[in-house]
């Protein structure tokens, strides 16, 4: 309907462009440096495009700094951990549908309690518990961390509730067990919810930092964020004999977001659910 753009419209467009630039320029700077040659990376000036295109930074990060190892570790922990989280939480959500089920109340109480107590309060005790269970320096400690979450159970429960209870009872009368009903009826209904949970699990677990920081001291088992932090802390001047140049450091950063870049196109659809799920991890 709007026929002519007013000055206000142009100002708004400028604001949008500024917002985009403020976000994109630092990212572009990192990307440009990561694809620069060793010589170009140490030259002064503003890098927004690779000056001498080269993948030497990636080669150094991947092979010499052995980023392939934490990368593979993180892929493994992220995949297994996300899958386990979705399985465990969806099963719990299904249990909540049955009002007569004796464990329904205990589950709800535990959920409410764990949603109130900030995870930070038990950072040190959790370390002790992992030590007592012999989980230090195991992938299991990272996979099990955050295996169930009240927020996810509630989100999936809301999807499950859209199924009429009569359907559940009809399936029961036909002799179907709970596993069958859960897998055949309820999981398909909640596909969008499961997708959102899965995506944000992947993001959260790929970004997992505090758990490996606390539980993993064995370098061979460390994850991508820890490896990236060690490299980022080094600067050209302070790294001593083994100089890590800006192109290598920025290549490490790009490797550190690589999996997120793959996931990102799917995430856009789930911005709003992400608010609910994202609130839990901050």
């Amino acid at each position, binding site marked *: 309907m709007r026929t002519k753009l007013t000055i206000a419209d142009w100002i708004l467009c400028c604001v949008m462009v500024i917002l985009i630039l403020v*976000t994109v320029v630092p990212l572009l700077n990192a990307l440009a440096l990561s694809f620069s040659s060793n010589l170009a990376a140490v030259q002064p000036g503003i890098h927004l495009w690779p000056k001498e295109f080269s993948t030497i930074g990636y080669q150094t990060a991947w092979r010499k700094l052995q980023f392939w190892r934490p990368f593979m570790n993180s892929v493994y922990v992220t995949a297994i951990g996300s899958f386990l989280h979705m399985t465990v939480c969806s099963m719990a959500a299904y249990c909540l549908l049955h009002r007569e089920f004796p464990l329904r109340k205990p589950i709800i109480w535990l959920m409410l309690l764990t949603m109130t*107590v900030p995870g930070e309060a038990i950072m040190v005790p959790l370390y002790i518990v992992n030590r007592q269970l012999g989980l230090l320096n195991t992938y299991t400690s990272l996979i099990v961390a955050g295996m169930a979450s009240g927020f996810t159970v509630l989100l999936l429960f809301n999807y499950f509730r859209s199924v009429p209870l009569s359907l559940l009872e009809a399936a029961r009368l036909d002799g179907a067990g709970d596993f069958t009903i859960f897998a055949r009826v309820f999981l398909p209904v909640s596909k969008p919810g499961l997708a959102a949970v899965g995506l944000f699990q992947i993001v959260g677990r790929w970004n997992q930092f505090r758990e490996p920081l606390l539980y993993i001291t064995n370098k061979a088992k460390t994850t991508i964020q820890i490896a990236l932090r060690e490299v980022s802390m080094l600067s050209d001047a302070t790294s001593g004999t083994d100089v890590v140049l800006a192109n290598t*450091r920025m290549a490490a*950063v790009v490797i550190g977001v690589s999996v997120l870049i793959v996931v990102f196109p799917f995430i856009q659809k789930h911005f709003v659910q992400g608010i609910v799920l994202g609130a839990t991890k901050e």
Partner: protein
Amino acid sequence: MGKLRLRKYAQLYLMAIPTIAYFLVFSIYPIIQGVHTSTQKPRLLGGGDYVGLANYREVLKDRTFWQALTNTLVLSGGMIALGVIVPFVVAIALHEVPFASLRKLTQTVIYTPHLFSWVVVGGIWIQVLSPDRGLVNELLKLFGARPIHFLADTSWIRPTLILLNSWKGTGYNAVIYYAALSSLDPQIYEAATVDGASRWQKITKLTVPLLLPTVGVVFMLSAVGALRIFDQVFILRNAATTRTINVLMTYVYDLGMVQFRLGHATAASFLVALVGLFTVGFLRRAMRVDQTDLA
């Protein structure tokens, strides 16, 4: 047996066990374990002796604790203020932009840093802010200014951290605001147009009041996160700035994981949690009072 209906619910029990076991072992037990540890004389190996609340008292007497508390309040104050106000303005701007494609693009782009870990954000910005060939200082050089050590200068580190937090989180909070705006009935705006309301009037008389309830939500989310600041400080602190930006959670980490005073660390983290629960409870209360007053 009859009461638990084991036969009828056998499969349900199997499905409930992982969640219950997880919560018991990794939430409830650590709390109990924490209470135990925090009342024990710190000792590296084996059990210590029961010392009551001595660890809590020692933490409260520790000057580093109060310094960390002050830093947490200053940093989180800045982060909450920017986290509530900037996305508010951004969301209104998004709502007003005449091109849907530009709006979508901006929304997507500014949301992206929220998905990055603080390690990644730190890695990118350590480079961008580097006094030695960093992007910002190269720009400053063009204007003849001297390079600034944003991450090493004690007078710059706090504003820098607060701004970085805003860079990472603005898009996320803007999506929350924008979600509230887009659920509004467009007929209200059409009616206002028919009545001859100007664009500015529509913003101040319609959009802003309709957004105000969401301010509470964003404020709560930011306030809850405030006491938990850890990653960004842990990643960006250095010998020069530790005293200026050390927060409660890094204090707990240092006590527990660096000095291995687990009793003191647990006591400190419980104190933090207590303050957190108190703050949240208080804010909830205060905001509810506000809303009933308005109604």
